[in-house]
């Protein structure tokens, strides 16, 4: 049964320096508040894993939490580049950032393998691209029946996965709906998991399109209303596209980025 914790407690207990951490959410349900708490608690040397390291990871990278990034698409969707990500890769600011790069299909299957307790997954992917040259986690594999060559990717097993969801009940059963991306797989692939939710309710009335994570498969749940902003929570909020657009200017220069992080993340009072 998942433990109910505050966000600060959850991050303190479950996210450790040097950990491999996946904050997932495919455009929808991105756990921004948890990312900010990781910045506030000054985690270092994290390997950050995420299919689409958008603004949330730009912030974590710019704040110096990450040593390594495992990803498949790093941009500000519909807006442009991630300036902090670029600055880290091109200029090692504030610290060098090592990259391990995949395709979406590869990353999704790496989580599936992790969730399935398998060391690898098989796909038709990466063929003819330069991606396999740069990581040992993509290898050819031969079909034992047809002899055909396919691609194997190594399983992802994060130390901790953090996701945001609509609701949980007191036993820590989690309910999410709308675009649920790869969150179930990311949680099940991880050794530990933290789920932030909009609401804790006595009963999780069934909702079309719902994905349920049983409380016994989740480590901790924290009640964090609005915890996905500027991403959104279907049924609770809409995507703050204006913020995503504004981020381009905020993040372009180191100084304006640091000022924003100080004001909107580091100096924010949060309940213990």
């Amino acid at each position, binding site marked *: 049964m998942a433990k109910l914790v505050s966000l600060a407690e959850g991050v303190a207990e479950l996210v450790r320096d040097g950990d491999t951490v996946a904050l997932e959410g495919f455009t929808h349900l991105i756990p921004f508040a948890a990312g900010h708490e990781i910045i506030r608690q000054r985690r270092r040397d994290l390997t950050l894993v995420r299919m689409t390291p958008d603004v949330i990871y730009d912030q974590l990278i710019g704040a110096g939490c990450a040593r390594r990034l495992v990803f498949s698409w790093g941009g500000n969707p519909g807006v442009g580049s991630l300036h902090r990500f670029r600055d880290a890769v*091109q200029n090692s600011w504030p610290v060098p950032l090592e990259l391990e790069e995949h395709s979406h299909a590869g990353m999704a299957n790496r989580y599936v393998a992790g969730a399935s307790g398998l060391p690898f997954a098989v796909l038709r992917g990466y063929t003819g*691209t330069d991606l396999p040259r740069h990581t040992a986690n993509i290898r050819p594999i031969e079909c034992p029946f047809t002899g055909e060559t396919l691609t194997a990717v190594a399983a992802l097993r994060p130390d901790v996965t953090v996701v945001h969801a609509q609701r949980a009940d007191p036993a820590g059963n989690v309910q999410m709906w709308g675009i649920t991306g790869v969150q179930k797989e990311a949680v099940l692939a991880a050794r530990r998991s933290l789920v932030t939710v909009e609401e804790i309710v006595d009963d999780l009335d069934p909702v079309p399109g719902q994905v349920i994570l049983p409380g016994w498969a989740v480590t901790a749940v924290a009640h964090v209303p609005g915890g996905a902003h500027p991403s959104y929570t279907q049924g609770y909020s809409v995507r703050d596209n204006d913020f995503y657009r504004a981020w381009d200017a905020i993040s372009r220069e180191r100084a304006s980025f640091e000022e924003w992080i100080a004001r909107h993340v580091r100096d924010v009072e949060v309940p213990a």
Partner: protein
Amino acid sequence: MSADYSSDEMMTVAAARQLRDGTACFVGIGLPSTAANLARVTHAPNLVLIYESGCLGAKPDRLPLSIGDGVLADTADAVVSVPEVFNYWLQPGRIDVGFLGAAQLDRYGNINTTVIGGDYTDPKVRLPGAGGAPEIAASCGEVVVIVRQSLRTFIDRVDFVTSVGYGAGPGYRARLGLRGGGPKTVITDLGVLTADPVTCELTLTRLHPGVTVDQVRAATGWPLAVADEVSTGEPPSTDELTVLRALEATKKAGV
């Protein structure tokens, strides 16, 4: 018909026209999404839009900023997980058309969206990377690329192969076991290039109104193949422009 349109609008309209009604189309964000929605609202009402966020058959009434805006889930026939959209829908070849952008493109339609200049580990410019593109390029029935044409984009050799087109030329895709038909069409702000069925080389087959072959050559970083007969496309119709601008306005207005 209106003479008062931008080259980007012409490009988007040309891309939309490329989509046949009733087909299934894997849509990336940006120009592909705009073009696919334009097609759906004009000549292809039964176009099935598939977004990598897991939305199958999305029918947004406004343009999403991201591939995961709420309007896509709200209007989709089904929302599936991200592993499912790649494994059950894209990989087996169920999607007719994949719509891709590019930062660099070569004559065989190989695409780079990863790094430009320098070394992979120390690039001049770090781009977003692969996303869904490598497998879209591999598995869709055919690929349509939308990209503004310039010497920076249309280069002799891409710095990094993020998504493979016809590789080194004829027979390459078959040797790799790729099942999709590859980048048959590249639509730019100057015209339309089509992969030659024999040489696999992108060949200029159509110009947008007012554009000359020399202009296209000047924006291409290799000796451009030009079809014996190069047609000139229709400019955007009033209807196409009206719908396109109404769609663009919804994007600027936010969600």
